[in-house]
């Protein structure tokens, strides 16, 4: 974390939240239960709200604005982890990704909350108060899946597939914390894999970016909304 500048740290978190929020919002209208449709859409809105607050903080330092950071960069300039880019329209994988991300995010936010920078620490604490409900949502699903054999199998398949990506959300000491927490929570072993780290992007990000920035790109420069 120390090797990165303040702006880089803010953008990593902001990009993760924006892209995951976008992915989560893909369930709106088609989630397997009406209640989850509402809950997941609401989580998606929260994540995008966090992204906006983080972009605003970064934008002040960079002399730009939040919209420009969210929409005007090329796909390769985003600093999000590949985990959040994956388009996984299958419920077990969605829940597994949600839980893995929230677990990693809690570790990262704990560090940011302890930051000497009062703006960063304050915003991280504010975000974390909302993430607490996301974690409650994710944890209750993990317990429910682990309560049955079918659920455990489905979760295991999803975790096996996503684990290399989850490892890539954090690095160094924080990654070790993530491994410890996830290992402590699951009754099965995690695969021995190399992390898919930040800095590389999936093809799926490109497709998401095309869709996400389409309106912005089609509007005349400087259009006011």
């Amino acid at each position, binding site marked *: 974390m120390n090797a990165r500048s303040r702006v880089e740290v803010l953008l990593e978190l902001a990009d993760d939240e924006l892209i995951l929020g976008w992915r989560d919002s893909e369930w709106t209208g088609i989630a397997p239960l009406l209640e989850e449709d*509402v*809950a997941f859409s609401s989580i998606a809105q929260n994540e995008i709200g966090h992204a906006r607050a983080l972009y605003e903080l970064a934008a002040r330092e960079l002399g730009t604005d939040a919209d420009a950071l969210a929409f005007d960069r090329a796909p390769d300039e985003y600093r999000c982890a590949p985990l959040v880019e994956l388009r996984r329209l299958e419920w077990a994988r969605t829940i597994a990704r949600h839980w893995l991300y929230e677990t990693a995010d809690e570790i990262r936010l704990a560090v940011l909350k302890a930051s000497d920078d009062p703006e960063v620490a304050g915003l991280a604490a504010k975000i974390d108060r909302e993430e607490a409900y996301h974690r409650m949502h994710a944890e209750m699903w993990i317990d429910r899946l682990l309560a049955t054999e079918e659920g455990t199998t489905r979760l295991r398949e999803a975790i096996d597939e996503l684990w290399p990506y989850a490892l890539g959300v954090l690095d160094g000491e924080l990654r070790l914390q993530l491994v410890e927490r996830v290992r402590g929570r699951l009754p099965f072993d995690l695969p021995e894999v190399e992390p898919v780290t930040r800095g590389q992007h999936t093809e799926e990000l490109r497709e998401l970016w095309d869709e996400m920035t389409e309106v912005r790109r089609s509007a005349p420069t400087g259009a006011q909304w």
Partner: protein
Amino acid sequence: MIWEVFRQERKGQPFQHAGSVEAPDFRFAEIYGREQYGRRGESEALWLVPREHLSVVEGWADEFDLKYRRVDGYSIKARLKEARERAESR
């Protein structure tokens, strides 16, 4: 499992029925209740009650047209009409 949701808008106000959520247990019901009935600050508190725990009372005997017991039981429209007609016929 259906949970009936009662919502209190402000401290001290009565809880009113807001709707329901479908959830397998209280943990799920709490999250769904929070998301559907509280995330915009519209609720001070919620009561979540499994539908099967509600005691339902219904079915009323009203054989003798006892509506005079209610404040809206006196319809004066018809009587006013009669009185008007009587007055006109004089």
